[in-house]
Each structure stands twice: as C-alpha cells, then as structure tokens.
C-alpha cells in the first residue's frame, strides 16, 4: 500500500472543508471495507483519507415524524438487528443480513455500501486498463469472465452496481441526503445513482466535496411487505450475480404500491416501473408474476458470456413476487 495521510475531523463542517480544499487527492473513509482493498490493490491512489469516524451524529437511527432517518455510519450489523426495521422495513434488515460476512457487516456502513465501487475484475486489477480508471480500453467486453457484468447494457462500461442495500431502499422509496459546502440537498435514492451515459468515472451524483449523511425511509402502508432475494455462488461472503427487491401491499388480495428493483444486472440499481404497472391493482397469481417478470426483463441485452443471468433473473424475480405474498399474509 502506498503511504497516505489519515485525517480525523470532529465535525461535519470540517469534513466538508477538507474535501473542498482542493489539495492532493482526497477520499472519505467510513468503514473502509471497500476503500482499503482498493488502496491495497493499488487501484486508487488517494493521498489523504478523511475519516468520518469522529462524526457521531452520523451514527443515529431516528424516528422523524412519519419517517425513519438512518445515519450514513450505521453499520450493516445494526441494520440487521435494529428493532425499528420491521414490518415494511423488514426487507432492509433481510438484505443487510445477506451482505458479505459478520466481520464485514460489523465494519461496513450504510453510506459506504451505497457508495461502493464496482466489482468488475478489470476495474479491480491495477494491471488492466479500464474506462473508469481513465483508460481508453475496456477488456471486460472481450473477456469470457462476464458473470458479474451488466445484462442491461452500458453504454461503454458494463460494470454493475453490486450494493445489496440499494435495491430494497429504492423499493422502500428512500431518500438520500448529501451535505456540501453550499448546504444540504435531498433526493430520491433512485436519482442518486447514475450510469456511464452520465458519468463513466463514478456511479453516483455525490460531488467530491459532498458527504452522504443519511438515508430516510418514508412511511409505508402497514400492510406493505418486501422480499429481497440474491443469487450468488456462495452462501456467505459473496456479491450478487443477480438480486431482486420486490414489495407491495396486499389489500383484499389485490396488489397495491408495488415496487420491483433488480441489483447486479445494470450499472445502477434497476427499477422496472413497467413491471410495477403490470402488478398494480391486480390479484396475485402465477401468471401475473410470470408476466411481470417478462416485462421486467424485456430490456435485457446480455453480453456474449452472461446470458445465463437473464434466466437467473427471471427465476428470481418470479419467485420474489410470489414470496412477498407469503410474508404479507403471515405477519
């Protein structure tokens, strides 16, 4: 690992000031479970790390009126066990439990999980070129090793967003808050993520001088339930090949407020409003689930070596749509 300076400010204002100072390459560090591997593997060369560890305010989980505010430094372990994450919010705890391993869940944070960098093997190797690293080539496109690449197109960069928390949070309709030198801005989490058509170098709209401070969950109907399913090669310690968050409320057997968001299939978490429209207002049936699944995956355009992910996604989406009803009726 190259040497770096480690700075531990005590206030958010100091953090923003340090990020905004325009000095040598600087990066925020929270749990570090992603950033440290990138530094050790010599993929990024940040010379100054600004730690968020001193900002206690970012550790809170707080009820604010109708909403639940989750600080960016809340660990995945806390998401797994916090008793406020039940009912409609249960899907988030479920997804947190599927991340990595217990050790990493103790260290990894909500904010870090949402800002994690792509898992593309070519991005992660210091020895291979990559558009994200400022290169002009993308060897991934010609490579047979495409299991962890997009089936929903790029353009140009086909790395996927591998967060396990983003799909359920988008399904819940969460907002994200960023704080920068000019103040605070809040937006739907869905709009936080951007694909390579907008930014080839970075996967979200956070500016280099901004801090992701919180995620806010809106109030959902009491009957609303979600399910998160994740296909992976190992039971523990693996990123998703494909993941799916599906949620809705069942009222008199009819689906209301459906949300359907795929992970691991596209450069951003992939919400399908078309599939949600198929489900909305309909009684649940196998045929309906199959139809919504087809619609969710009509946009699929797999690469040469990852068409299997489309089959895998179909199986997973259909299963998740049906599974929500089991959760919805059993609680």
């Amino acid at each position, binding site marked *: 690992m190259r040497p770096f300076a480690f700075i531990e400010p005590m206030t958010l204002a100091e953090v923003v000031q340090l990020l905004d100072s325009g000095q040598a390459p600087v990066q925020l560090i929270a749990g570090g479970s992603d950033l440290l591997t990138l530094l050790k593997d010599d993929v990024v060369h940040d010379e100054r790390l600004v730690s968020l560890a001193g900002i206690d305010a970012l550790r809170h989980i707080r009820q604010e009126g109708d909403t639940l505010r989750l600080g960016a430094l809340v660990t995945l372990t806390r998401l797994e066990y916090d008793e406020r994450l039940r009912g409609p919010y249960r899907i988030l705890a479920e997804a947190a439990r599927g991340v990595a*391993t217990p050790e990493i869940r103790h260290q990894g944070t909500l904010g870090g999980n949402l800002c994690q960098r792509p898992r593309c093997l070519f991005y*992660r*190797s210091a020895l*291979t070129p990559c558009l994200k690293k400022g290169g002009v080539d993308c*060897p991934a496109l010609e490579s047979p*090793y495409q*299991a962890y690449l997009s089936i929903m197109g790029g353009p140009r960069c086909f790395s996927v967003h591998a967060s396990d928390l983003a799909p359920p949070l988008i399904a819940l309709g969460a907002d994200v808050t960023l704080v920068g030198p000019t103040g605070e801005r809040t937006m739907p989490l869905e709009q936080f993520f951007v694909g390579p058509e907008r930014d080839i170098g970075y996967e979200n709209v956070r500016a280099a001088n901004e801090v992701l401070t919180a995620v806010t969950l809106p109030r959902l109907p009491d009957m609303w339930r979600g399910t998160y399913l994740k296909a992976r090669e*190992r039971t523990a310690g693996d990123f998703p090949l494909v993941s799916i968050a599906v949620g809705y409320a069942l009222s008199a057997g009819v689906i209301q407020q459906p949300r359907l968001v795929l992970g691991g299939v596209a450069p951003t978490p992939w919400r399908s409003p078309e599939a949600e429209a198929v489900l909305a207002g309909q009684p649940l049936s196998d045929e309906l689930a199959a139809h919504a699944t087809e619609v969710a995956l009509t946009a699929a355009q797999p690469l040469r070596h990852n068409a299997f992910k489309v089959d*895998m996604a179909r199986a997973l989406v259909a299963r998740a749509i049906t599974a929500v009803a089991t959760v919805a009726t059993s609680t």
Partner: protein
Amino acid sequence: METEATVVGTAVPRLGLAQKVRGEARYTADLKRPGMLYGRVLRSPHAHARIVHIDAAEAVRLAGVHAVLTHWDVPQVRIDPDMLPLDPVVRFVGDEVAVVAAESEALAEDALRLIQVQYDVLPAVFEVEEALQPGAPTVHPQGNLVDGERLLVARGDVEQGFAEATHIFAGTFRTQFHAPVGMETRAALAEWQGETLTVWKTSRSVHANDRQTLARVLDLPLEQIRVVCPNMGGGFGNKDEGRLAVLVALLARQAGRPVRIEYSRAEEFVAGRNRQAAVHHLRIGVRQDGTPTAISMQSTMNAGAYVATGVRVTRRIGQGALYLYTCPHARFEGTTVYTHRPAGGSFRGLGAPLGHFALEVLTDQIAAALHIDPLDYRLRFHVTRVGQPGQRTTPPDALLPDEPVEGGVSFSSNGLRECLLAGAEQIDWRQRRQPHGSATGPLRRGLGLAMGIYKGGVGREAEAEVRLTPAGRVQVHIGNVDVGQGSTTILAQIAAEALSMPIDRVDMVMADTANTPPAHITAGSSTTITSGAAVKLAAEDARRHLLERAAVVMQVPSVCLQAGYCSSDATPQRLDVASVLAGMPADIVGTAQITSGSRDYLINAFAAHFAEVEVDMRSGRIRLLRYVAAHDSGRIIHPRLAENQVSGGVLQFLGIALREELYVDAPSGVTLNPSFLEHKSTSIVDFPPIDVLFPAGPDPLGPHGAKALGEPPVVPVLAAVANAVANATGVWLDEAPFTPKRVLQAIHEQGKRSV
C-alpha cells in the same frame, strides 16, 4: 513378540494441538531474528518480456533499504531445469524480477516502486493449441512441449480392444486452473553466521529440495546449510517453489542481516504453484453387457511458465483410465505444455481427480445408455485384487510401481467392493436413487457415485532414528515435514506401539536438517506407509537394544516388554522402562533405512464416494445435501485424524467442483481474481454433512496394515458431484467448476426444461 496394538488404531490427542488452539504454535511468518529485515518481491507486469535495463539506484538510496537484488546480482545456476534464481526473461505476470530487503515491509514496498525496469515486451501464448503451433512464441528455449515429447503409457492394444467392442463411448472433459489456497501463505527466513546458513521455510521437503537447491545454487557444502520447517499451515503439495529460499538467502547475505519474506495473499494466488487447466479426451469400448474392452485417454495440460514437477502431474491423470476397471487394453497419452500463464506445480492428487472426473462421468453415461444401475456397473467391472489381465513387465526382482500399467500382478489388498457396498448402504442407494433424470419440478434431487484409485505411497527411501534417553523419553528423529495432516502424531503412535510405551513419552523431531536423517519429500501420500515403516523398524531396533540392556540389568537370559514394563520368565521381578534407561550412560539408538514397496504386489489405495445434491433448474445453483466417502487405506492408525483427512479433502474438492477457478486474462496474462473473495474459496456454510467410512481391513504389507490416505480423498469428488447432478437433472456436466452459468448452459443445450 507381537502384541495387541494399544496406541495404533486409537484417537490419541493430536500432538501440538493445544499450542495450535491457544495460538502459541509458531509458523514461519511468526519467526523473528535479531536485526531481521523484511523482504519484498518486484513482479513482472508482462506475460513475456526481456528485461533490457533495471535502475535500482533510487531504491538503494532510500533510507532503511539494505539490499536490492536483480538478475545481475544472483548466480545464474539453475534451480530447476527451467528456472534461474532471477532471469533476464520474465514468463508470466507475477514472475520475479527483483527483491528488496528493508527495515519494514512498508519500506520494502516503497522501494519496489522506485525500481525502474525497462522491458522489451515479447509475444505471449496462453493456450495449449497455440503454444504447440510451429512458430508460436516459446516460453523456454527448449520448446513449449515439456520434456520434448508426449508421455505414452499403455497395456495391451487399444485398437484391438475397440475392434472387439459393440459400443464405443467418447467424451471431452475440461478442468480448470485454480489455486490450492493453503491458509498459510509461503514464507522464508534466512540467517547467516559466517559461511553457515540457516533457513526457516514453509516447505514440503527441507532435505531433498530446499537444502539441495541452496547448496547447488549458492555453491556451499551441505554441512553449512540448515533448513527448518516449523509448523505448516497447509501443504497440499504446492509449497515446492525453488526461488524463495534462494532469494531470501542471497538477500540476507547481501544485507548482512537476517531477512524474512512472507507472501501476501495475492502473491500466493499468482506466484504460488497452482493447479493447471487441462483437457481430456476419453474413449471407452464396451461389449453388449458393458464389459470394457478398451479405454483410451488423451490429456493435455496447460502447465504455465514453469513446471517444477514436470510431467508427473500429467501422468497421474491417466491412472484411473489405465487401472480402475478390469480391461485388457488401456492407453494414456499425456501432453504437458508451457504457456505464459502462472507457474504450475503439484497439488493434492496431482492429475488423478481430473482424470477420474472424465472416467467416472463417462462410465455413468455408459451405465445409463445400457440401462445398468451405476453401482451395479461398478460392482461388476471394477478392478479386483487379482489386478489387470496381461503379463508382468517389471523384472521379478524389482519393486513394483504404485502407478501401475502392466497386467499380471495382484494388489496387496483391494477394498473397492467393500467401499462401494458400505457407501451405498450408508446413503441408502438402493432405496433412494431415482432413475436417471426422472425427477421433475424446479428443484431436483439426485444421487451420484464415483470410485477412485490412487498411489500407495511407496517406492521412496526413508530413514529414521529412534533414541531412548536416560530420562525415559523416546525421541523420534525423522526428516519429513508435518504439512498439517498430523503425521507427527501418526509417527509417534507407530514408535510408541513398537516400544510398548505410552504416547506421552514420545518426542518428535522433524523437518530440521540439523537434527534428522535425510528424508524424501512429503508427497505422494507417503508419510505413513514409507516414513512410518522406517520409524517402526528403527523403534524395533531400539527395542532390541533396550531388551538386551534390561536382560543385563535384571540378570536374566531374555526379557520381554509389555505396557512399559520389562519382565522375564526367569524371575518374578518386573522393571519399568524408565528404570532400565535411568542407569544408562547414553541414549539407546535404533536406526532404520528402507526403500518402501513390494516386489510381489501392487500397493494402491481405493475409495468410493457418494453425493446427494439438489439442483435449482431455474438458477443453476447446486446444493450439496449429503456426502459419503468410503475409503480403503488399510488399517487406520488414528481414526480421528483419518476422518479429518477425508472430510478435509472432500471439502476442498467440493469447492473446486462447484466454484473455485483462477481467471487469467488474455492477452494481458493478468490473473484477475487473486483473492479469497473472487477465487470463490468455499466457506464452511456451504458444506454438507460428510460421513467417512473405512470398511476395508488391514493391508498385509503396510506398517501396522496401513496404506496411503493423504490424497485419495480428493480423487472421486468432481465425478461424484457431476454424476449426482446428472441423476437429478438428466444433464451431463463436462467442465469444472460447475457454476450456475455452466449448469444453466448445460440445461439449455441438452434440452431440459425446469418443469
């Protein structure tokens, strides 16, 4: 004199276990010497290049850096026929270019970044087909075909055998490039005192490999070199690279201080010795009733840039095809090819699990085509104790090989039938196995089985010394390495048994060239059967001396020894061993020197494995539900360690069957996934319950009736899983690992649907 065994055959507490559990056991990377420096290796970013110039001046000037070595600074003496200590030509991404010793690891890494290397990048070749084309880039001047020729071994005449067949079955099978993934990365520490060198190192052979190599390359007499291997965190056969010991010794000499190098995990994946990818073409001819008439296999191994173990890995691919089924005509052709991939080497089982994958899957296809239950097919046609038909070709007075080809020789013992029957009963094969591919629905369960045949661990020389000290201790000196499999305990049991002494009186001295007689490499599942035989003889020798001494002390003509006491018919007096020894001026020394093996019988180990899987037809995921491994390794010296050896081997190869693979990018030659995360090393939650059975009896030849066990557990695993998947789904897998992608593709291509 033979008495009922009391120590052998029981699960005595494993020696050194408490220290390991408490974290007190010292491994190479735990060792520190006064003034010790830390070494790091600069590795090639190119798959093939000539080093035009290296400027290390800036690195040398960095405060705290004490030595930098490039190929100009090291003896140009070959470590292996294809390897120099440092070479002006680099042959894979990760090949060693230079080494640095500094006050800290971080400083050493900083120094690496200051070394300027100018490369003349050369064309590289990654695939076997290309590498064998005329005009292909050559990895080594002697050509890309290792040893300059294909390996050919045969019995009978396969063409005649195929002519006699009514059906001929054929298949092509592929096995992947992957890493053995020992928990401990390799490490070495060198210290000079004048012209005398001590090296502590992760090793599988301090005597036969490391010390010899150091003597040759450094041009030192053997007496001036001591090599020690402390505790090992996993051997698996691949810790036999040649460069590490040499480079750390040269760095220490240059710096004038001790130096330790410890590989990072990524280095272990890229620059450790890995299992090479291979392709296997198999043809089997059978009569109407299924009787094999000819078995012919051609395998090609992509050996990477260096091959310490040469064609031996390839040779072992053929063992199943040549010998597992009774068949007069069998042939194996093995091709080993250099490419610019990371270096290959030995790994547990060598080629055997790969060849057995092809053989045992094609055998299931034959059984399915002929509508014979695969268990019945094997019960009918597996090789039996009488061996293969044909004429012995080994001269009558020569030791028989344990990788046999010839017919006309019997096995010392062969428990295949017992393994098949016991395993089938344990998994309830007769009741629970559904007809091939008859399951329906999205989740389908199935049972599969596969057999294995493996070397007996013989054919090597071994020496042992057993000392009885005046303090009443038994000291066993043997040069082998306990690579983590527990041989320390096994060899102590054998000595204790021979001396009728409790095991807690035995002290083991191993893997230290200064204190042990010369020893063969810890390889080929040989420690118990070969080194164990030497320990047994040396202990018996010591016992004879002890009894002579006791007879003098007790003033009787002869003495016998039982449960730690010397007694005689001539007197009611009994004397404990400690009292006999206490009066001695010096140690009683027993020695033995042997070459293990037999002139009359083939010695092999056998196994039959049974797997139960559930396959998700929609996601392609295979879940292991249950596994039964039945082994004939003769008499089991330590039941608990033996079970661990088997379940550990099964676990290791279930990971290799299902997901583990190293990806090498072409044309860059970069290993893309050198980490536990991306290599998909399996964690404990993915393993099924494993039942381990030892249904066969003692072998008449082995020490206390034992046969080999180290590697046999890994041999049938790939095939047992593939056959269970085929039973569940009707889909045959011909390429490992069996990832969701491959399973879904196979389902798609073989026209199976999910309902």
